[in-house]
């Protein structure tokens, strides 16, 4: 599993430490020097291109731009992020979007993976559509969906109209716009999450699933009592990636709705983009970035503490 904070791995790391130093009369500092030489290229670029911008964002978040200069404004930008009705709405939208993303990535990803995990030959042919969408540029994908959603000439309403169902104004209806963005995002990313589950399913012992099938257990029972518990480490991983992924994609918002109508589909990263990139309210953008980052890191740390404790109880 990818997660760096995976408690089991950390446990084995800890115990490995003692035994290794017994076997190898290698001084800790020697190993440490090697480690830092190995890490050096990554650390240099992480410091210059990730850490430094974050530090400068923290500094910027206490300033406002006046022409070429920055003036210190204390907590004003943070006040705006927390009290402005617009950012309230952005936070609500983002929470709904991320939660839906989390649920559908897990449930849809798992179900799709189960479908993909058939032991037949040439199954690859059927997997292709779900992998292909991962490889397309989001800007193109969104532009194409813009047409599909188009209220009068778009494909969806043509189809609905031809079978006598009511048409919708997908992206221009405040009740539908956010869902419209979400569908595009899931269409593109579902295959990605399914791949992780597929990997997990294939690493399960075959006879577990096979036996359950023969016993005449229904599919839902099998899913609930056998598969779900067995893939729980993957679920944990997919959840993490799903949350990060849904927060970090912005191109489709830009192309499809620009956060509208009337901010109904405005998301956190689009807010940051608009404030920082289009309006040069660099201070507000930086404050929102810092808040977003703080939330994510807190979540990661809480997760770590929680799992650490659970491991101790076990």
């Amino acid at each position: 599993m990818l997660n760096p904070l995976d408690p089991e791995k950390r446990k084995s790391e800890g115990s490995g430490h003692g035994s290794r130093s017994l076997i190898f009369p290698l001084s800790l500092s020697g190993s440490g020097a090697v480690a830092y030489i190995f890490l050096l290229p990554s650390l240099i670029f992480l410091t210059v291109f990730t850490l430094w911008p974050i530090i400068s964002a923290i500094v910027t978040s206490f300033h406002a731009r006046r022409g070429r200069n920055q003036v210190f404004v204390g907590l004003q930008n943070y006040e705006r992020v927390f009290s402005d009705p617009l950012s309230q709405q952005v936070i609500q939208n983002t929470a709904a979007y991320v939660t839906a993303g989390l649920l559908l990535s897990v449930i849809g990803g798992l179900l799709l993976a189960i479908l993909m995990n058939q032991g037949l030959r040439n199954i690859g042919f059927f997997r292709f559509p779900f992998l292909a969408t991962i490889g397309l540029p989001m800007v193109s994908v969104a532009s194409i969906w813009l047409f599909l959603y188009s209220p009068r000439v778009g494909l969806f309403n043509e189809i609905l109209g031809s079978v006598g169902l009511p048409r919708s104004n997908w992206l221009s209806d405040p009740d539908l716009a956010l869902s419209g963005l979400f569908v595009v995002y899931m269409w593109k990313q579902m295959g990605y999450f399914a791949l992780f589950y597929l990997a997990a399913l294939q690493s399960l012992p075959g006879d577990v699933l096979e036996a359950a099938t023969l016993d005449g257990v229904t599919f839902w029972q099998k899913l609930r009592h056998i598969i779900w518990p067995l893939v729980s480490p993957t679920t944990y991983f997919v959840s993490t990636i799903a949350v990060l992924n849904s927060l970090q994609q912005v191109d489709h918002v830009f192309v499809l709705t620009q956060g509208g109508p009337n901010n109904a589909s405005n998301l956190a990263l689009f807010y940051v983009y608009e404030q920082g990139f289009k309006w040069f309210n660099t201070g507000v953008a930086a404050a929102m970035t810092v808040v977003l980052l703080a939330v994510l890191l807190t979540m990661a740390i809480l997760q770590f503490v929680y799992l650490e404790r659970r491991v101790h109880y076990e």
Partner: protein
Amino acid sequence: MNAQKRKWREILPILSLAFFGLIWLVPLFWTLAAAFVPTTELLNGGPIVWLQSLHFGAFEEAWGVAPFPRFYLNTIIWVFGLLAIQLVTISLAGFALARLDFRGKDQVFFLFLTQLMVPATVLILPNYQTLVALGWLDTYQGMMAPYIASAFGTFLMRQAFKQVPKELEEAARSDGASWLQVLWHVFLPVTRAPLLAFSIVSITYHWNEFLWPLLITSSVETRPLTVGLALLVQSSEIGAQWDQLSAGTLIVAVPILILIALVQKQFTNSFLSSGIK
């Protein structure tokens, strides 16, 4: 009867997969249609008309808006060049985090974790200033720089290296091999799958990257395919031109789609054996 029931159990998932697959492909079919059918007919005619009047006008126009052959070359240089560097950095860093003890490991960990959490979009403007200071605007190294350290890849490799049996490492070490030799001769040969999985994720991500290269490149010699695409998605004045946009999408995406189709088996398998589970 039981046999029949079992047969259904095998066929039903395939049928549903095929059904969903077809639905999934609808936007792609539409892209093809839009690229090769005149806009007038696309907007006025049904699907039958579409097939009657294939034309390549939009494709030719789209191909003409930018020096695409050169942009293909640039994209290949930047995407694969970056990948080559990343494979080195993530192997080394992943190995250090998986197999070596050192002071400050938690802090280093935290630094990598931070990169995983920061959306690349918010780094664009500060990193632009850094590139100016380094004199790296409009260069390949400038395009690559923010991605040379990869938390995703490092964690992936760290996890894979952890699964390599300790005995292999110990045997090599007791033969007097250096850590670098251990990494090269013992670890990398058994971790090809995660390297491939990472490669494909990295290639698809950077091949399609839009804003960053658009902002920091200027010349025909460095600009990637997506800059050509940027010329075709502009809609601020008159709305999207579906035909050219679709043609442009195909120009950019077809190599990646072919790659995915060709290596999809290995791709899937690499995920299977990469230790992501």
